[in-house]
C-alpha cells in the first residue's frame, strides 16, 4: 500500500472552489457584530438624548453653572429658524451684567466665552487663564494709541512690571508722621509701662478690627469723660476712590482712638489742672474746648489771676518770655489759651501731624491739620487678600518695615516678594497660582447694574 503523501496539489484538490460564497462563523460574527454594535451605540445615544441634552455636552459645567446642566437651552439659545445654538454674550448678560473692561479705550472687547471657558468642570469660572488677559496686554493697543498702563505684560513670572507704588520716584503720600522703627523697638513707653509692640497692635483686617480689642486704644474712662465714643476703625466710603469693588478683606485704617491714644493721649494734655485732655479733633474744636474749659475754671476759681503758670506749660521756642501778668479775665483767658494752643498745635499735634500755620487773618488764625492722605489701598487696579496670607509673619513680606524711619518710606512688598511663592504655573510647579485673575479683575464692577431674574425653577431644571 502506497504511503500517504501530502502535497499542495493534493490539498488544492480538496477545496470547494465556491467556499467564499458559503457562510462562515467568523464572517457571520463579524457581520452581525458590525450591525449590532452600531445599533447598540445608536440606542445608547437615543436613550441618553431622551433623558436630556447633556449627551451633547463636551464636559462638566463649572460649579456655578452646574444647576443649568439639565437644560442646555438656557445658555444655548437658538435663533428662530437657525440650527446653530452657540452661546452668545446675550445669554450671559441675562444673568450677569458684567461691564466691559475699558470698553471706551480699547478696540477689542472679548466675548464672554473666550475668557470664561465653560464645560471644563472648573470650580471658578472667573479664574481665567492668563491668555485671556495677555491676548490684549501682551501688546496693548488703545484707540488713542497711548495706553495708560504698561504695554507689554505677557506673564507674572518675568514680564509683570514692578508695582506702580514702588517704581522709582514713588513715595508714601501719607501726611501722618510715623516711624515704624521707633514703634517696634523693645521697651517702648506704653500706657502702663514698657511694651514691645507688634504689627497687629495697629494693623488688622477690617472684619477682625470690628470685634477685636485694641491694646493701645483710648482708655475707656477717658473716652467716656470726653463724651467721645471710640470709633470703629472703618473708614466711611473707604472704597469710593477705588476702580474695583473690593471683594476681599483689607486692613482697617489707622484711627487715633483705637490705635494711638493708649500711648499718645498724654500728647494732648495741655494743663495739669484739668483731668481731661484736648479732643483729637480739628483745631476749631480744640479751640472751642479750651475756651470752654478756661471759662469754667475762671468762674470756679476766683484767685486764678494770681496763679503762677506751671513751667511745663511753656514751650519756650514759641512763647515770648517773660510772660506778662494778666490784669483781668480776658487777659488771663488769652494767655491760658495761647499757652495751651502752643503746647498742643506746636508740639502735641505736630508730633504726628503736619500743621499748616494760619495766616493770622480774622477767622483764619488757627493752624490747619494737613489731610492725612494715607492710602486706603495701594493697589488700585488689583486686589490683595491679607487673610489668605495669614500663615506668614507680617515682616516676611513687609521686610523693610522694622528699619523704616521715614513716613515717606513705602513699605509695600515688591513683586519679587510675591514671586517667591506665586508662579504662572501655580500648582503644577508646587507653587501658588500666578494667574492674572489672582489679583486683577477684568470687569469694572463699579458700573454693574442689577439684573432682574428671568427664569423659573422649572425652566432651569426641567430636562429638555
Amino acid at each position, binding site marked *: *500500500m502506497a504511503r*500517504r503523501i501530502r502535497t499542495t496539489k493534493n490539498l488544492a484538490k*480538496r477545496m*470547494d472552489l465556491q467556499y467564499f460564497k458559503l457562510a*462562515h462563523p467568523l464572517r457571520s460574527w463579524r457581520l452581525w457584530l458590525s450591525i449590532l454594535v452600531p445599533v447598540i451605540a445608536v440606542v445608547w445615544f437615543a436613550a441618553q438624548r431622551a433623558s436630556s441634552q447633556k449627551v*451633547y*455636552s463636551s464636559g462638566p459645567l463649572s460649579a456655578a453653572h452646574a444647576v443649568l446642566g439639565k437644560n442646555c437651552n438656557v445658555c444655548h439659545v437658538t435663533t428662530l429658524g437657525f440650527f446653530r445654538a452657540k452661546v452668545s454674550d446675550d445669554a450671559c448678560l441675562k444673568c450677569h451684567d458684567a461691564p466691559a473692561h475699558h470698553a471706551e479705550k480699547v478696540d477689542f472687547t472679548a466675548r464672554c466665552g473666550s475668557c470664561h471657558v465653560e464645560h471644563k468642570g472648573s470650580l471658578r469660572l472667573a479664574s481665567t487663564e492668563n491668555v485671556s488677559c495677555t491676548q490684549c496686554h501682551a501688546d496693548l493697543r488703545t484707540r488713542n494709541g497711548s495706553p495708560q498702563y504698561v504695554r507689554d505684560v505677557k506673564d507674572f513670572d518675568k514680564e509683570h512690571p514692578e508695582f506702580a507704588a514702588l517704581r522709582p520716584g514713588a513715595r508714601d503720600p501719607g501726611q501722618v508722621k510715623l516711624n515704624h522703627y521707633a514703634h517696634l523697638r523693645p521697651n517702648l513707653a506704653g500706657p502702663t509701662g514698657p511694651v514691645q509692640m507688634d504689627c497687629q497692635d495697629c494693623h488688622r483686617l477690617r472684619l477682625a478690627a470690628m470685634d477685636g480689642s485694641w491694646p493701645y486704644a483710648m482708655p475707656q474712662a477717658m473716652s467716656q469723660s470726653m463724651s467721645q465714643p471710640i470709633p470703629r476703625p472703618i473708614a466711611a466710603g473707604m472704597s469710593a476712590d477705588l476702580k474695583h469693588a473690593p471683594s476681599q478683606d483689607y486692613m482697617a485704617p489707622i484711627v487715633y482712638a483705637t490705635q494711638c491714644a493708649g500711648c499718645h493721649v498724654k500728647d494732648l494734655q495741655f494743663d495739669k489742672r484739668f483731668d481731661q485732655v484736648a479732643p483729637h479733633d480739628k483745631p476749631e474744636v480744640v479751640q472751642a474746648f479750651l475756651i470752654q474749659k478756661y471759662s469754667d475754671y475762671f468762674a470756679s476759681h476766683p484767685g486764678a489771676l494770681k496763679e503762677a503758670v506751671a513751667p511745663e506749660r511753656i514751650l519756650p521756642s514759641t512763647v515770648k518770655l517773660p510772660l506778662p501778668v494778666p490784669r483781668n479775665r480776658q487777659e488771663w483767658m488769652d494767655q491760658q489759651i495761647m499757652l495751651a494752643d502752643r503746647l498742643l498745635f506746636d508740639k502735641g499735634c505736630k508730633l504726628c501731624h503736619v500743621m499748616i500755620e494760619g495766616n493770622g487773618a480774622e477767622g483764619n488764625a488757627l493752624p490747619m491739620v494737613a489731610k492725612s492722605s494715607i492710602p486706603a489701598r495701594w493697589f488700585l487696579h488689583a486686589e490683595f487678600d491679607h487673610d489668605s496670607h495669614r500663615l506668614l509673619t507680617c515682616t516676611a513680606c513687609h521686610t523693610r518695615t522694622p528699619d523704616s524711619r521715614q513716613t515717606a518710606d513705602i513699605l509695600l512688598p515688591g513683586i519679587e516678594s510675591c514671586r517667591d511663592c506665586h508662579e504662572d504655573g501655580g500648582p503644577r510647579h508646587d507653587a501658588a497660582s500666578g494667574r492674572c485673575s489672582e489679583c486683577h479683575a477684568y470687569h469694572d464692577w463699579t458700573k454693574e447694574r442689577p439684573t432682574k431674574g428671568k427664569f423659573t425653577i422649572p425652566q432651569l431644571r426641567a430636562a429638555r
Partner: protein
Amino acid sequence: MRIDETHRRWFIVSLAALIVAAVIYVPYSRSAPEGANGGTVAGLTYGIIAFAFMLFAGLLGARKKVPIWRVGRAQAWMRGHLWLGFISFPLILFHSGFRFGVGLTKGLMWLFAVVFVSGIVGAVLQHFMPRFETQRIPMETIYEQIGRVRSQLVSEAQILVEQACAALTGSVSQATEQQRAASASAGTKGGLTVASGLDVDEGAGVELKEFFRRELQPYIVEGGSRGMALADRNQSKSMFQQLRLLLPPNLHSSVDDLENICEEKRELDQQAQYHRILHTWLLVHIPASYALLLLGAVHAVMALRY
C-alpha cells in the same frame, strides 16, 4: 499586512504630519484659554482632519467589497488605512485637548480608544503572525475549508481502516515472537487494549476498528479537540506505535498513513487557532469602527450646532 519597506513613504508622511500637528498644538494649547478644546479654530481643524482620516480608513471595507473599483490598489488603501488611522487618534487628542469629556464625547473617545488599540493589536498580529504560521504549518489550507478537509480526512481514515481489517481477515499474522511478547506486556496504554499474540489476526481487526471508532474518528471530526489523547503528539505517537505492534508489518504503512492523517488534523487545529488569533480582533475593530463613524458624524453635526 506586513509592515515592510513598501510602507516607508506612508510612514514618513504620517510621521511628518504628526510632528507638524504636534508642533502647532503646543503653542495653540498654551495660548488658548483653559487649554486646547474642540471649539476653537485649531481644535475644529484637528477634528475635521482626523474625522476625514477616519472616514478614509473606514472606506477600506467598501474598497474590499468592490475589488474592481479603479480607485487605487487595495494594498495602497490598506497602507493608508493603517497609517492615517494611526495618526487620526493623536489628532483627535489634539482636537479634544487630551480630555475625554462627558456624554457623547466620552463615549466617542472610549470607542476610539478601543478601535485604536484593537487596530494596533491587529497590525502587530498581521505583521508577525503570517510568517510564524507559515513556519509552523507549511501545508496550511484555507481556513474556511478546514471543516470540509476534516470530513475528507475521516473518510480517508475510514477507508484505510477498512482496508487494513480486510487484509487481516484474509491472511496469517506476520508478527514475530518478539513483537507478540512486547504487545502482550504492553497491556493497556492510551486507551488502546493491546491484544495477546495468540489471537492477533482476529483481535487486531477488532481493536483497529475500535481505535478508529473511539479515538481516531472523534478526534478528526472534532474541531480543536483539546484534551483528546490524539491531540497530544507524544501520546499519539505512543498509541500508533502500539498499533504497529498489534498489526502485521505489511499493514504498518496503513498505520503510518493514519498517523499522518492525525498529524494533518493537528496542523489544521493549529492553523484554526492561529487564524482565530489573527482575525478575532476584527470582531472588535470593525464593529467599533462603524459605531465610531456613526456617533462621530452625530458629534460633528451637534458640535456645529452648540
